């Protein structure tokens, strides 16, 4: 009985934030925090099983339809993530995008932030197709407004446009999807009753394409890197942590509600594997810190899709238990990725705030100036690489278990599961490489430019949210068994056959125990080694560097050289562009060499195709030139063609 009031408080808080926020930052922050806390409480009420699914229908018509909201376990899972990241981002933006630094856009930023959170919440709650579409569209628009908050840069505007165009291509699919759904079922109502209608099966592909664009599924991810890199960092955090999860939500939701096609599992798991491997390969090759993080989101969506695809395969092969394992892993990864990716984007934001650059080859040695950010970023890097004892490992472990069990069970699905498990391992190793690069090149070593040497740590409002997110990462890693019933309930909502939640069939409690012991041992070992070193005598000296006496920051390994070996393996995908100016003559004036990994899919695939379409349209436009005589000729030609069609009987 408590969910309704909590959600009303949340909605009211966000609305008040939208109305009053632009002028009153403190009130806005308070209102947003209250609202997100309330919605988090509502989501947890459902997730912990205190209350069954919450439903509400209005008595008035909105756009010809009765409003219908529903909060079930799947929605609640995503709503909880939205609440945490929405609140943390609001707190982070207090100092990061303050009136003092951005007098022009900070007010707008608050307005659209509340709007974005509200609309995403609405998308999660909607149980009416028409209203879902409206909320979806508004959510996209809020996202655009936030990306282009600092709209003076050409790159930012281009990124915003690309986001808007790609999102609308996706929305087009969704329009088709929902209207076909409505016409085949006779109503806009959404819900588990759709599963009974076999006619809806082919619509799954439309939903996959439409939601896939938002989720950044690999070949449809083109908008994602530039939008995430150019948006303000707290916006990047919520876009990457939550907004792309809305796409995942759509895929999860409708793969559960629609009767999925036979090939659905195979296609989804293949998309996931491709996204995981190629996404992280692109991430490794980036020199821009935020772009690296953005591509890593493509990878993590791939990981989630691998789990979901395995779940679909499991459901198709007699509701096998391994499918449930993979699904639980995927759902848990939704949370985990939201948490650590927001943490990492906040960290990148602090770096950007302090130094004014995102280029890793110009950063370095920041840990002396920003010890908090450095340690929290390192924690996030460990988590995102899927290393024990943190949360990323728990969810990847569950997905692995699902995939391995499919192989052990000798199910036909093993032909997908076993190769994908190997791909997942390679993606994990590349993620480790990427984040060793991102963290260590940014925070360790010597400063590469002067500007970096004068960096400063962000304030308590910037560190605080990062601490909260980092603590959540550690908590999930150390006590995963507590989450099993929660996520198990969501899996039950997805596939009723798995609803009979048994006690954890996997030994999550054992894993949690091992993680706790590991964490304690790590702490003990670090302290012990530190004490021993101090007792033996600790002397500071230059980095040895094999005897070189005057090393400078510029002599360190750069971001580009760090990914050199692996980039060579993916040359056929990257199409790396080199521009070199060689030194000439006996006293060369200057030389430079720039290596750039282009947005291959966008520039080499979609760009040329788009240009071709444009040329074709231009050619067709020549038909329209304003001469009356020609128009009459068209008419006559059209009539003749029609009559020919009738005469030959082709129009029957």
């Amino acid at each position, binding site marked *: 009985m408590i969910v309704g009031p909590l959600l009303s408080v949340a909605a009211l808080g966000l609305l008040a934030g939208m109305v009053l926020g632009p002028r009153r930052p403190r009130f806005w922050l308070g209102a947003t925090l209250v609202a997100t806390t309330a919605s988090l409480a509502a989501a947890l009420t459902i997730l912990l099983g205190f209350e069954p699914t919450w439903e509400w229908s209005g008595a008035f018509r909105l756009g010809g339809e009765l409003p219908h909201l529903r909060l079930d376990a799947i929605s609640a899972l995503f709503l909880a993530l939205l609440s945490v990241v929405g609140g943390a981002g609001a707190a982070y933006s207090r100092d990061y995008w303050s009136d003092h630094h951005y007098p022009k856009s900070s007010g707008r930023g608050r307005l659209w932030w509340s709007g974005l959170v509200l609309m995403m919440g609405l998308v999660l709650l909607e149980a009416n197709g028409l209203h879902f579409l409206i909320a979806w569209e508004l959510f996209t628009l809020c996202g655009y407004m936030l990306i282009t908050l600092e709209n003076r840069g050409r790159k930012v505007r281009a990124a915003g446009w690309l986001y808007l165009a790609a999102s609308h291509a996706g929305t087009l699919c969704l329009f088709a999807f929902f209207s076909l759904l409505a016409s085949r079922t006779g109503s806009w109502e959404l819900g588990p009753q759709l599963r009974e209608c076999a006619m809806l099966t082919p619509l799954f592909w439309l939903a996959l394409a439409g939601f896939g664009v938002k989720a950044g599924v690999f070949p449809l991810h083109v908008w994602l890197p530039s939008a995430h890199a150019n948006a303000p960092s707290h916006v990047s955090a919520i876009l990457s942590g939550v907004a792309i999860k809305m796409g995942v939500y759509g895929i999860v939701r409708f793969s559960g509600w629609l009767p999925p096609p036979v090939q659905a599992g195979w296609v989804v798991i293949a998309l996931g594997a491709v996204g995981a491997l190629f996404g992280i390969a692109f991430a490794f090759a980036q020199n821009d810190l935020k772009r690296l993080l953005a591509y890593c989101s493509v990878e993590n969506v791939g990981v989630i899709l691998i789990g979901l695809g395995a779940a679909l395969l499991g459901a198709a092969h007699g509701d096998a238990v391994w499918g449930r394992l993979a699904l639980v892993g995927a759902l848990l990864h939704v949370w985990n990725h939201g948490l650590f990716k927001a943490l990492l984007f906040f960290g990148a934001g602090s770096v950007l705030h302090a130094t004014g650059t995102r280029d890793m080859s110009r950063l370095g*040695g920041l840990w002396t100036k920003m*010890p908090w950010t450095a340690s929290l970023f390192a924690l996030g890097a*460990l988590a995102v*690489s899927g*290393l*024990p004892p943190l949360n990323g490992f728990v969810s990847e*472990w569950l997905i*692995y278990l699902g995939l391995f*069990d499919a*192989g*052990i069970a*000798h199910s036909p699905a*093993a032909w997908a599961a*076993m190769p994908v*498990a*190997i791909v997942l*391992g*390679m993606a*994990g*190793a590349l993620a*480790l*490489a990427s*984040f*060793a690069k991102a963290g*260590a090149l940014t925070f*360790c*070593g*010597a400063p590469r430019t002067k500007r970096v040497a004068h960096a400063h740590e962000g304030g308590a409002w910037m560190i605080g949210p990062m601490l909260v997110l980092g603590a959540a990462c550690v908590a999930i890693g150390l006590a995963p068994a507590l989450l099993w019933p929660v996520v198990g309930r969501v899996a039950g909502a997805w596939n009723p056959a798995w609803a009979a939640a048994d006690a954890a069939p996997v*030994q999550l409690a*054992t*894993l949690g125990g*091992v993680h706790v012991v*590991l964490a304690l*041992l*790590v702490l003990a*070992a*670090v302290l*012990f*080694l530190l004490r*021993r*070193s101090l007792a*033996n*005598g*600790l*002397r*500071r*000296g*230059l*980095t*040895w*560097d*094999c005897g070189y006496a005057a090393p400078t920051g510029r*002599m*360190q*390994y750069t971001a580009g*050289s*760090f990914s*050199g*070996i*692996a980039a060579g393996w993916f040359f056929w995908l990257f199409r790396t562009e080199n521009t070199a100016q060689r030194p000439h003559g006996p006293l060369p004036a200057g030389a430079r060499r720039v290596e750039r990994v282009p947005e291959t899919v966008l520039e080499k695939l979609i760009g040329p195709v788009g240009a071709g379409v444009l040329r074709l349209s231009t050619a067709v436009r020549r038909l329209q030139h304003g001469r009356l005589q020609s128009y009459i000729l068209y008419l006559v030609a059209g009539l003749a063609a029609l009559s020919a069609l009738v005469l030959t009987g082709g129009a029957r």
Partner: protein
Amino acid sequence: MLITILYGILRLALWLLLAPLLPGIVNKVKAWVAGRRGPPVLQLYYDLARLWRKGVVLSTLASPGFLAGPAVGWVAIVGAALLLPLGPAGSVLGFRGDVLLLIYLLALARFCTVWAALETGSAFEGMGSVREVSYAVLTEAAILAAVLSLCVHNRGLALAEILAPSAGAGATLLAAGLFTVLLAENCRVPFDDPNTHLELTMIHEAMILDHSGPPLAAILHGASVKLLLFSVLLVQAVLPIGAFAPLAGIGVLVGGVLVTTVGVGLVESLLARFAFKQVPFLLTLAFLLCLFALLVAWKGGAA
């Protein structure tokens, strides 16, 4: 409960004490092939004791992470070793999926080593780190294929289930693949030369150039535990130790580890280090060997 903990501590002591023996044996074999007398087998113990008493020279750039890296890496490797069952003795704490924890603990150790290396801002250490993380992508694929083949063949997901009972038909393939992985993961010839002093050509050694004193001792000891870990893993994956009587099983395990170690020494004496360009090729081969072992296991299970 108490007994389990005591037993675990006993096993831990066994791992920690025996591990530094292996590099000594490898060096002895190398010396023997070259016709030299060579350093004593216990040389690494002396080195570790000496390093443990020495002071630390710390780069001016290094953060506390530079000291934490070796500590975390050491704990991760030793933890992974403890997960491993020892023939008839089984594992201390076996559970479904512990094999993945083992793989990822090794990855954690790698992350920490690389992070600590990059703390110094030296280009050499950067080079070593790049090689380490890049080649790990291929070894990871090979290890996963090998583990999958063991899981599919023995129909289990816990290390104790997949290692002890029986060796598969693809054991030869698996042996070749895992031995190559062992050489690569432990930075032995032909992937890396642990004795070289030419920084440009090293992987592991290049990453630890700036370490000294107790942290270096932790790194060296961790490396020896890792070598022992991989030898034990290889022997148990390939030989049907479960088919022997308990005591004989222990004997076979110890003998197998010795043979593996001598094999490493022989490879090191007879083979030159490969050019770095050939490393991916060799690792791909190792991956394919493990992949075909998986295929054999799959076909064997289907029949």
